[in-house]
């Protein structure tokens, strides 16, 4: 398991090798790559995103989310890395990898992980468009 919130992401190839080494029972590796989209929900052209995080809480909550999802779906292992700082359009923001015995539980775990990271880990995003910059509002999710 690896939970990281940092100014740079590790290479995806390295992360795949790392998760593969964990067990010979792995039958599927599922990967989510979050990328900065060039158009905001308002239709404005995005120049870049700025991510900031609670330095100590963000990695701790990320690790907690990983542990919960691994246990809930019985998957073999998971990795999540989230970038902070300025991230231009087209660049990767987040890698989430899930290793499972079969694809079904892997897909379910991956979706849960990505949703939980967005809603629970204290990381915040500011969208900088051609016209303005604004903080993106988080959504309140009932437990």
């Amino acid at each position, binding site marked *: 398991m690896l939970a990281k919130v940092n100014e740079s992401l590790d290479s995806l190839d390295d992360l795949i090798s790392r998760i593969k080494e964990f067990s010979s029972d792995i039958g599927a590796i599922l990967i989510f790559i*979050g990328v900065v989209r060039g158009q905001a929900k308002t239709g404005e052209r995005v120049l870049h995103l700025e*991510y900031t995080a*609670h330095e100590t*809480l963000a990695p701790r909550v990320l690790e907690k989310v990983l542990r919960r999802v691994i246990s809930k779906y019985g998957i073999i292992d998971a990795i999540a890395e*989230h970038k902070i700082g300025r991230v231009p359009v087209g660049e990767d923001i987040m890698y989430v990898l899930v290793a499972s015995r079969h694809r079904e539980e892997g897909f379910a775990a991956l979706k849960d992980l990505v949703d939980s990271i967005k809603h629970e880990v*204290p990381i915040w995003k500011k969208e900088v468009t051609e016209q303005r910059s604004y903080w993106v509002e988080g959504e309140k999710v009932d437990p």
Partner: protein
Amino acid sequence: MKGCKVEVRFYAKFKEELGLALIQLELEEANFRSFLKALRERIGEKSAILFRDDTQLRDDVLIAINEQIVGDVKHPEVTLNNGAIIDIMPLPSGG
């Protein structure tokens, strides 16, 4: 009940909108109710950024006490230790 001093840290949108990163508050009583009262007095006319009424925080305010997220458990009688660190954060919007 004896009072206490707490340190309050603001993050992201709240840090910008309030123009505050870190403040210290002296509380009349060492509990969450007293903290909210002192915070509201300190931020004055900008209190609507964090408060929905005189005594309650808005739903989009996330609180951590001594680096533990307290979620919806913001009970007024929750005790605070002297030197407690209280983080005031917006809801997460990463990814």
